[in-house]
């Protein structure tokens, strides 16, 4: 199943995605490690940031020489943007640098937590949607904000599991479940995953996909962790679709009592 051979595509704004694990490309040792980890993850969506080209000390290597835009959907983010104006400017630059209208919109509220500024997020999303962008918003685990983002035209919402890079896992599973029951668009759990069980849990709760970066890039063996995450997301998705048994306080025998001596 790890080859995603089961037919269960994720559809967002009419685009079909094969993998329910999306990965970031930051914090790797080098581009070669980035490439290998992404390949091992099986992801077909990768996030990137938009930054100044270093013109004085230029490394001739470009990320896109390692991550083929024909093979992967490149999803630019607005990481590091603390104002609506910055997030909108970076989104426009991302569109100019790339080939699509997709943007993972981040409006960060605070340096220490990197929590989203959800008021700014909604404002920036409105501006960008009016300009034809397909806005995938990085948001808090707040069902009301998630619904507002859906209502203004975001074709998916991306609530956090925990602060970016924290590895704390899902801090508020009940809110995530409420978001999944509230919005009619795909829910992609983004940020805060620490290890494979966190990703599996998110999928078991009913998330449509999981996006992560640090949990893979920061592992001792990023490529092995990418593989683990791939299995975890598949396992969680299958368990969700299969339907778990209800929790009961007391035992229910699995073996029949008839025929005992």
């Amino acid at each position, binding site marked *: 199943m790890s080859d995603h051979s089961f037919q269960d595509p994720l559809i967002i704004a009419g685009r079909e995605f094969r993998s329910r694990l999306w990965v*970031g*490309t*930051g*914090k*790797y040792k080098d*581009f070669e490690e*980035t490439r290998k980890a992404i390949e091992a993850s099986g992801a077909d969506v990768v*996030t*990137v*940031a*938009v*930054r*100044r*080209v*270093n*013109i*004085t000390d*230029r490394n*001739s290597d*470009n*990320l*896109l020489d390692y991550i083929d835009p024909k093979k992967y959907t*490149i999803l*630019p*983010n607005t*990481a*590091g943007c603390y104002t609506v104006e910055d997030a909108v*400017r970076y989104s*426009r*630059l*991302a569109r*100019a*640098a*790339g080939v699509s209208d997709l943007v993972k919109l*981040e409006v960060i509220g605070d340096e220490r937590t990197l929590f989203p500024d959800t008021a700014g997020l909604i404002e920036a999303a409105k501006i960008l949607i009016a300009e034809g962008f397909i806005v995938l918003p990085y948001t808090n685990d707040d069902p009301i904000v998630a619904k507002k983002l859906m209502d203004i035209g975001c074709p998916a919402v991306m609530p956090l599991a925990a602060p*970016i890079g924290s590895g704390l896992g899902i801090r508020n599973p009940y809110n995530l479940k409420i978001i999944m029951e509230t919005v009619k668009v795909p829910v992609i759990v983004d940020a805060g995953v620490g290890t494979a069980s966190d990703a599996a849990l998110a999928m078991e709760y009913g998330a449509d996909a999981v996006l992560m*970066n640090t949990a893979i890039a920061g592992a001792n063996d990023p490529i092995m962790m990418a593989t683990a995450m791939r299995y975890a997301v598949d396992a969680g998705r299958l368990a969700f679709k299969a339907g778990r048994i209800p929790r009961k306080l007391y035992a229910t025998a699995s073996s029949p009592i008839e025929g005992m001596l």
Partner: protein
Amino acid sequence: MYIIVNGELQERGHPLTVTHLLESLDLRSERVAVEVNFKILDRSDFPTWNLQEGDKVEILSFIGGGAPQQRL
């Protein structure tokens, strides 16, 4: 003429199109976004866009995200 490229003052000959600037920096136009005086250019305008004295040029591309890096 003097222009500012990614925050750095550079002396350049005139005329200079955006395409020429990118070529001189060994950058592929299909991999970058270019902003001149806060206006984002269409890629199709690169060959004909003549840079002027004092222009503030920003050249950006995709990098691994989102580790903290130098911003604008």
